[in-house]
């Protein structure tokens, strides 16, 4: 069990007692697993639930939810933004504006990191409480090159600090991957090994530019974001997040705001695993007891 708990501590951003707010939630020396869940009924978020409203099974074994929290835990927001050539112009401008607006909605103890991806993945700002640093990094964004979506998603997940805060990875992309080394399955495996929740915002179309010899023979091609959508849907489902599609540049602002609001309204369930194996993949099932509503949560976690 010790091994399991130690593994959980790594894999799920486990809370160990200390002189911070998390100590108030756990008895001294206790280690628990934290599961981020979203409850909806139709299009509406379901609020006001308590620990007793949830039924949580770890590998089919019923667990006792010891704690439930909403909104109180500081947020680590990792922004992973597509800056490939198809983002040039108004789309990039809208993205930067939407991100700036998102920063205004954060709380003082929240931290933000900015990763951009085109042909290359670039860490423009590590997790920082400084909004000024992020604003400065946003100002440097320029659109050029291919799309390393999968490598960027992995990098964002790997950057997640061993920190008690909840981590939201917000991936924005307007096209399919065209440059990554990592295969989709490799990134999904990584997602299983972290406790971050991934939300993705995808544009409904992408633009690709052809050139012949660099002398101004260019064309604009419109294709769907279907390929990227498949990967993003798989990735977000695995972590309990979801994909939101923006139909236009103007939608970005509202979609980002909706993403953050939804994440804030999620419940964080904590429990100490009992009666389960000490290694390997743990399948999680979370349901409501005696109430209607759809629960969205990560599919499981790795105990190593």
């Amino acid at each position: 069990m010790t091994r399991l708990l130690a593994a959980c501590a790594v894999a799920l951003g486990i809370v160990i007692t200390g002189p911070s707010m998390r100590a108030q939630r756990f008895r001294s020396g206790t280690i628990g697993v934290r599961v981020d869940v979203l409850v909806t009924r139709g299009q509406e978020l379901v609020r006001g639930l308590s620990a007793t409203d949830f039924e949580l099974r770890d590998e089919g074994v019923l667990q006792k939810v010891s704690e439930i929290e909403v909104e109180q835990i500081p947020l680590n927001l990792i922004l992973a933004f597509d800056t490939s050539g198809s983002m040039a112009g108004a789309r990039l401008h809208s993205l930067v504006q939407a991100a700036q607006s998102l920063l205004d909605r954060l709380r003082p103890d929240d931290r933000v990191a900015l990763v951009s991806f085109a042909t290359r993945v670039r860490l423009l700002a590590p997790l920082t409480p400084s909004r000024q640093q992020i604003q400065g990094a946003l100002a440097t964004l320029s659109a050029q090159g291919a799309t390393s979506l999968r490598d960027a998603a992995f990098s964002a997940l790997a950057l997640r600090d061993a920190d008690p805060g909840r981590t939201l990875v917000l991936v924005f992309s307007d096209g399919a991957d065209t440059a990554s080394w990592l295969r989709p399955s490799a990134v999904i495996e990584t997602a299983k090994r972290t406790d971050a929740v991934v939300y993705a915002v995808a544009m409904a179309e992408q633009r690709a530019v052809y050139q012949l010899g660099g002398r101004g023979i260019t064309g604009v091609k419109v294709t769907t974001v279907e390929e990227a959508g498949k990967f993003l849907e798989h990735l977000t489902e695995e972590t309990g997040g979801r994909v939101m599609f923006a139909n236009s540049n103007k939608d970005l602002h509202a979609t980002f705001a909706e993403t953050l609001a939804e994440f804030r309204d999620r419940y964080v369930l904590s429990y100490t695993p009992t009666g389960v194996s000490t290694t390997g993949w743990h399948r999680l099932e979370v349901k409501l007891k005696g109430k209607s509503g759809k629960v969205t949560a990560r599919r499981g976690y790795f105990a190593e």
Partner: protein
Amino acid sequence: MRAAATATLGVLVIGLVLCRTVLALPQGATTPYAEAIDLFRRGADEPALNELARIMNVDVTVERNELLKTLDSKNREESERAAGTIRGAVMLHTARAFAALARGNGGEFRYQVLTAEAYVTRLRSRDRRSAFVQTWPLAVLALLHEGREVRVAKEFGEHARDPSGDSAELLLALGATEEMAWWMDHEDDADVKGDLRNAERHFRQAFIVAPTLIEARLRLGRVLVLRDDPEGMKVLGQIGSFAEMPFQYLARLFEGEVLEKRGDTAEAERRYATAVSMMPTAQSAYVALAHMRHARGARAEAANDVRSSAGARNVPDTADPWFWYSRGTAWRAAGYVEELRRMIRP
């Protein structure tokens, strides 16, 4: 309708008359088609394409036939002049084809490429070893690879085969097309099929035709390991210090991937680390290393790898050999196009 048909016929007749008298002329009085070709040969791409867009396809056909007749002229000077114009026409139609493809107009792309191809076929019948004839299909395939238009590349590749023997570079391009198609089918769930056995066959033939073509050896090793053929590691292992650094880098990266898949993480880590040390600005080996470390629980090391690579400043976007490798022969496109442009200058 009748008026339009008459007008078309009128243009056709005028075109015929003009073609006979003008196309073979060096300069001065000219048809719109000859004007468009001339503009393109002089580097005025956009005006040339605009001019071509205004010409009806039927007129292009008529003028093309006339040009081809002139090519067969017994007057050597006239024939050479026609050959120069035809080379320009090939590039003009190729440019129009890619502009159409960029707009998602596959039908127009095919029409323009077929027009260019008809010219190239005639040029080939005169001299199958000419640099222009050899380079044009390579450029088209490289540009298609650059745009990841693999399905079109497969179709075009079949047309580009030389019945009397393909060049090593064409074989390389054909194999790379199959490899890209396989990859896109397997990793991106794209609606295109690639056959690694075909890719292997093309790369082996390329290697026979040009034993010093390291890229053929590298790609052969890669497709073999993708097929779990043990020969793949041997082939990759042959890419040593004699090869240029990007090829060595990729060989070590691919070896690391095989070893990781086999569960030999210690050796895989060494190969990835070797690749990193060879080209520290390339990102793929860093990402591979970070991913493997993350998977075995070394999260801090993985995060450090990501920070080292993604945090590096002033690294060009295209500093990674993997980026070029994954685009088939796209990295050769600029060179091919420049060479062709040099060959069409008036």
